[in-house]
């Protein structure tokens, strides 16, 4: 299955490609891309199913439940960077 290159997917990928080592929260992605949860999370699920996105749970110290974190995998970053980031030097 190939990654559907919709405008919404491009927004999400561009957000992740800005910093490949930074873990991001779902609400953080929603605010920066302008996508609602119902649009954003199916994209994230699809990316994870393709092995382009890795997920993790953040351990919080304040007694709050952990949050879900997302980051591109090596495959996701190096394979798809040329398609979503223009003018960025390798």
């Amino acid at each position, binding site marked *: *299955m190939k990654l559907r290159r919709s405008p919404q997917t491009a927004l999400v990928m561009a957000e992740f490609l800005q910093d490949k080592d930074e873990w991001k929260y*779902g609400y953080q992605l*929603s605010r920066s891309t302008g996508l*609602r*949860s119902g649009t954003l*999370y*199916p994209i994230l*699920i699809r990316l994870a199913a393709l092995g382009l996105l890795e997920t993790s749970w953040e351990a919080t110290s304040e007694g*709050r439940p952990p949050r879900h974190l997302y980051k591109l995998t090596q495959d996701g970053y190096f394979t798809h960077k040329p398609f979503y980031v223009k003018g960025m030097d390798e």
Partner: protein
Amino acid sequence: MAISRTNPFTSRAWTNDRGSSICESGWRIEIRRFAVRLSAWVVRWSSPGCKDWAQGLSREIEYIEGDWAALVWSIGSTRILLDRRRSLPTVNRDAVAPLWWIFPMIAATQILSSVMDAWKAHSVHDRAAASLIAAGWVCWAALSIDDWFWQRDKPPVSDIQAFRLFVRATLERRLRHYRSERRWLSPLIAVSICAGFVMKFEANVIAAVVIAAGGALVLWMLFLDMPEEIRQRLTHINRLISEDANAVK
């Protein structure tokens, strides 16, 4: 700041010592509460493969500043209920489908009622309709029992390597099924059951059309959707197994 909880369905509004409306605060509390409850409901009814994602969605609500924004977020999270995925080994929990007993119960009642209908039928037409339905359900039950025997050898999720190898063997078995003559068995079962119901409800054109359309949808899902899903899951599980093997080295 003393704020007392108000009934959101009354139109009376008091002000607290800062002058803002207590009724308005009550509404905001109810909105946030509803958003949290809706998200919890989504977590409960999401498929095993999407449970972690649903949890992730619901945890974000705590960090959303606005109550209306939290409500919009939780309403958007219901979209995940449409994504029915089985649990993948990375989630590391048993993929037990809720209400698993429903389909066997439906099959058993359909088989019994169809056999009784065929026994009591007065015409060849009615007997044929009931027999087609009964035959379809009996074949489906036989396939399910065969699958159940295979699943009895499933290792525990705690033994992640063995579990992944078992999942891969299961997926390869299912893909072999689609490449063999047995791939016609499931569509034949669907056609048999649908044809039986169409014959049974022939006086009711709408029911016949709905049943035929439902049967066509099932056939499409069996032939086009499932083999592709199996291939995707095989690719994913092979990648996980090879990552494990590399990690051991």
